[in-house]
């Protein structure tokens, strides 16, 4: 580092001047974005755009400290990071299989879920399903009528078979 520093009288002059945030009202107060700040640190900005950042950096001691620190770090060779940092950071993102969202629950999973969320809606849906099933069954004639109809069909078929047999025997003179 150079020892090229200003003289004491220059410093005294500067110290006699008010240069804090409160007096720098002429400086544009718009916040400096990270990207603009990075572009300025790289010297990529136009003169006009750079002047806006320079005004902000001159006014804001935090921003000025940030600029000086970053300029120092970026201008030096970087030491190797601790392995633990890398391991922890890599673990933040998992493989695709691990990150795949669970499948959407089915209707029965939802209806018979053990938690209390949507309990009222679930009860209403189940009641509606039961009412619809019973109504449908009743409209179809119920269980008794269904069995009676089935029995009738069976006996009719049996009767038809016996008639056919008698006719065959009669025709043969038996």
């Amino acid at each position: 580092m150079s020892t090229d520093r200003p003289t004491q009288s220059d410093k005294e002059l500067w110290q006699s001047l008010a240069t804090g945030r409160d007096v720098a009202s002429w400086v544009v107060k718009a916040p400096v974005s990270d990207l603009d700040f990075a572009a300025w640190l790289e010297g990529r900005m136009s003169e006009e755009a750079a002047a806006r950042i320079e005004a902000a950096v001159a006014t804001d001691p935090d921003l000025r400290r940030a600029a000086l620190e970053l300029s120092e770090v970026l201008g030096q060779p970087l030491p190797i990071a601790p392995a633990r940092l890398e391991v922890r950071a890599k673990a933040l993102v998992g493989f695709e299989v691990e990150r795949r969202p669970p499948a959407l629950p089915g209707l029965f999973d939802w209806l018979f879920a053990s938690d209390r969320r949507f309990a009222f809606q679930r009860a209403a849906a189940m009641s509606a399903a039961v009412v619809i099933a019973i109504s449908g069954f009743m409209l179809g004639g119920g269980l008794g009528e269904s069995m009676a109809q089935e029995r009738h069909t069976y006996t009719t078929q049996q009767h038809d078979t016996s008639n056919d047999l008698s006719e065959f025997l009669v025709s043969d003179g038996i």
Partner: protein
Amino acid sequence: MTELNQIDLRTLVTGNKRAWDGFVAAAAPLINAVVRRALASYRLSEEDVMDAAQDVFVRLCANDYRLLKTYDPARAGLATWLAVVARSAAIDHARRRRQATLPLDDVPEANLGVEDRHVEKLKIPQGLLTERQMLVLKCLYDEEKDVAEVAQLLKIDAQTVRSTHHKALLRLRSHFQKEPQ
């Protein structure tokens, strides 16, 4: 640093594990260095510094890589942008940590006292100095940096810094000699 420039950001922000691992390996030295430098004056433990560095990576991948998606390679280099983001995250982390762990009673009384050293100072009128002149003077006097450091910051040579400094002081002297207040 060259590795960082080879990172495929489009693949990275899709959540690709390999791309993330490559990014972490390339960015870890920079983030580690920036965080350590930023927190040097906070006197935090090694564990806290590691947490702060980890916090930077968390921010980068949080909410479906929202922060990383704001990066525009046309405007700034990835390394410089990452350094800015890392420093800002580290300072936030340290401030949160300090607020959470330092009760007012633990602060030495000398630090809480405000010394009344009010001295009427002269105001620099608007437009007397350019933004760059003001910045050069602030860096040299308020931050006590030397010419080489200011030159490195502003990406200009040391002679230009000296010349800017000299012109700024001439203007100040000339103005305040004419109008003593």
